[in-house]
């Protein structure tokens, strides 16, 4: 890389945050940091990988067809030739949507997240969905990992609550290299 293109801590105005965990507490922190940084003028790339993708999914009922059947709508990132029926199993038993996320500790079969959400609402703290909408409004760039889209049989155009870019590790490396803040939740 030529010397004049080197991005240093002082010159970079980018942040890259990777959400790996699909747990409510970690999702809240990742989104709060992303929103705060975007509000303060930083260009934020928010990456979602594996269970972290659950945060962005549209909620489906446990008995809905959409939950139990694989989507035949092969949106970007999917490879239909290697699809197997077992993908439907992980899709069906996975959590989806910001309201269904478990807590990393004190989950107590879903009681913990309900209690935390109640307390946060009482204190005027934003929900995960509100933070996602604010992040979108503040110009946070949502990016998702292509292998996860393929393995978890995700329909990027219809299954997500935001528009997200499907990308790979090369883009992630470029993002991290040019960012002054890199975090994995």
């Amino acid at each position: 890389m030529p010397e004049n293109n080197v991005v240093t801590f002082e010159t970079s105005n980018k942040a890259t945050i990777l959400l790996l965990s699909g747990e409510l507490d970690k999702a809240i922190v990742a989104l709060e940091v992303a929103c705060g940084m975007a509000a303060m003028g930083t260009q934020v790339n928010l990456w979602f990988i594996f269970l972290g993708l659950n945060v962005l999914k549209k909620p489906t009922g446990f008995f809905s067809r959409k939950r139990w059947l694989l989507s035949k709508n092969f949106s970007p990132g999917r490879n239909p030739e290697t699809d197997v029926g077992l993908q439907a199993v992980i899709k069906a038993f996975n959590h989806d949507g910001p309201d269904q996320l478990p807590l990393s500790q004190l989950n107590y079969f879903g009681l913990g997240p309900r209690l935390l959400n109640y307390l946060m609402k009482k204190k005027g703290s934003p929900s995960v969905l509100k933070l996602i909408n604010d992040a979108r409004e503040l110009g946070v760039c949502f990016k998702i990992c292509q292998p996860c889209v393929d393995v978890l049989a995700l329909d990027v155009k219809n299954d997500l609550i935001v528009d997200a870019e499907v990308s790979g590790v090369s883009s992630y490396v470029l993002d991290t290299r040019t960012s002054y803040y890199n975090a994995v939740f």
Partner: protein
Amino acid sequence: MSVVHASITVTGKCCPLPLIELAKAAKNMRPGEILKITGDDPIFEISVRDYCASQNLEIISVTNENSSQVGILIRC
């Protein structure tokens, strides 16, 4: 007394919502215009001061409107 061009209230909202609302409002202001923000979060004043420092905005005044509410005038 300065002319206030826009005012927002973030009473009852806690971190990071005041910061997000302030950033959204400041984006729609023209340079030199005055924005008033009112809030009651315990770290509301710190958030606004940090935002203004990072964006090079001037804080004109900070007033305690009642026991918990703080009003801050910012020149954009």
